[in-house]
């Protein structure tokens, strides 16, 4: 589905060069939820941004390939890249409170990528937006409400609806529940599982939360200092870790209960 080979991202900061992502290779299989697990500073978020070539100065993708449908995202001209972003690969960010524009209705925001990518009429885009809202279990009657009229969990649903609007094949979710209460988090995770089946999605879920990975992901990639230290089926990695880093992590987690 998506193949990442030898991807490296550097950050050029005052103190020198930081290898945020250091030669990462993995693939995302069709219909799976792949977890990317890492502590803070492991490079997992940078990796998420790099998959859509969204790394900004002072960062730079220095090498690698990201193959989607036989084409390398890193070699695409900007025009083509824009057709990938949002339309084929969509992203959901951590903070639902800043991800939405407070002065636009949620309908307008969900319609934006539809109009942008599919060039359809407003009426049709509105119908699609309503459909996307239904998919995330928000009453389509609320399409003309503003973000502040929604709770944090509901806003994250709106963000997911935006991501789904253009029927992407791949969803990248970067800690989408960190800002939410655990019971709301459980609802969002259940929703992700549901829309995955409904829309035939493949999901990359980036988090530091092993509990979520265990609940949600088919496979997991464990990152440490920019590199992948272990990769495999979630239960195998957690129950029989092979690498020292993963072992130590699992020991710590067991101790915490």
């Amino acid at each position: 589905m998506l193949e990442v080979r030898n991807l490296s991202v550097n950050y050029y900061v005052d103190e020198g060069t930081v290898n945020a992502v250091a030669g990462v290779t993995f693939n995302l299989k069709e219909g799976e939820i792949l977890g990317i697990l890492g502590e803070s500073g492991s490079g997992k978020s940078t990796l998420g941004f790099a998959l859509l070539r969204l790394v900004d100065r002072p960062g730079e993708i220095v090498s690698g390939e990201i193959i989607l449908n036989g084409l390398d995202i890193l070699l695409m001209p900007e025009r083509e890249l824009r057709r990938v972003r949002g339309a084929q690969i969509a992203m959901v960010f951590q903070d639902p409170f800043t991800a939405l524009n407070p002065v636009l209705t949620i309908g307008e925001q969900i319609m934006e990528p539809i109009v942008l990518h599919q060039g359809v009429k407003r009426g049709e885009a509105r119908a699609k937006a309503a459909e996307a809202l239904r998919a995330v279990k928000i009453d389509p009657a609320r399409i003309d409400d503003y973000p502040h009229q929604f709770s944090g969990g509901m806003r994250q649903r709106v963000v997911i609806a935006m991501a789904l609007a253009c029927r992407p094949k791949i969803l990248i979710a970067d800690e989408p529940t960190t800002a939410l209460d655990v019971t709301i988090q459980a609802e969002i995770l259940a929703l992700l599982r549901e829309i995955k089946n409904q829309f035939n999605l493949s999901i990359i879920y980036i988090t530091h939360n092993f509990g979520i990975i265990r609940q949600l992901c088919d496979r997991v990639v464990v990152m440490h200092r920019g590199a992948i230290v272990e990769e495999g089926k979630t239960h195998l990695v957690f129950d029989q870790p092979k690498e020292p880093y993963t072992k130590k992590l699992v020991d710590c987690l067991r101790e915490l209960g």
Partner: protein
Amino acid sequence: MRRNKAAIFGLAIMAIFLGLAIFAPVIAPYSPDEISSAGASPPSWQHLFGTDDLGRDVLSRSLYGARISLSVGAVAVVIALLLGTLAGAVAGYYGGWVDGSIMRAVDVMFAFPSIFLILAIQAMLTPNIYNVMFVIGLTSWMGVARLVRGEFLRIRQLQYVEAARAIGCGDLRIIFRHMLPNAQGPIIVAATLGMAGAILTESALSFLGMGVQPPMSSWGNMLMDSQAYMRDAPWMSIIPGLLIMVTVLSLYFIGEGVRETLSPKERHAGS
């Protein structure tokens, strides 16, 4: 600061002006009141900036004028800072009716056209340099008060303030030790901009004859003296005008530079 050339330039200019003001008696070729030529004469080797209508050396008067103008600006801004910081800190820290009444007072002060207020006060007092300093200080603290109040409202939300309260710190300690040092950036900016404003106000006052009184020279009353001779002796107005402009600009550059260094840095290398 490394990137901020304008601020460095401003700082250098201010340092030079300050040095010239301090060493005016050593540098000035003439005494500021000494009549060294018959009437206004244009710039020459004897009088680099020319002489004024009474034949006094403009360079010497400018150097002595710098002492007056800069110290009026500095003292006025210190008064404004003390008053404004105190009012803003108390309003922002205690909130509620304390905040309400202080900020209403600020609004009322703001609503007064301050130049008329200053003129009215000056008309009642003897217009000498000390009164000028105080009057400018007393009418220009409101901006600082608003700024400090805003900063305090922000800082009050931060956890280390609550942490300080939790270990048993009193109000004064929290205000002065924990909050004020964290608000100093914007206060420094306000100080530089405020000094520029005070120098301009002093010039305006002196220009209107209500500020620094002759024979003492300030850049403002030099400008006033030059009014009648704008056409015949343009150097009389150009020199103090330029000095005021360069000083005010330098202070603005410094203020902007400080503001820029304090603004949140670009976030780098996330996780």
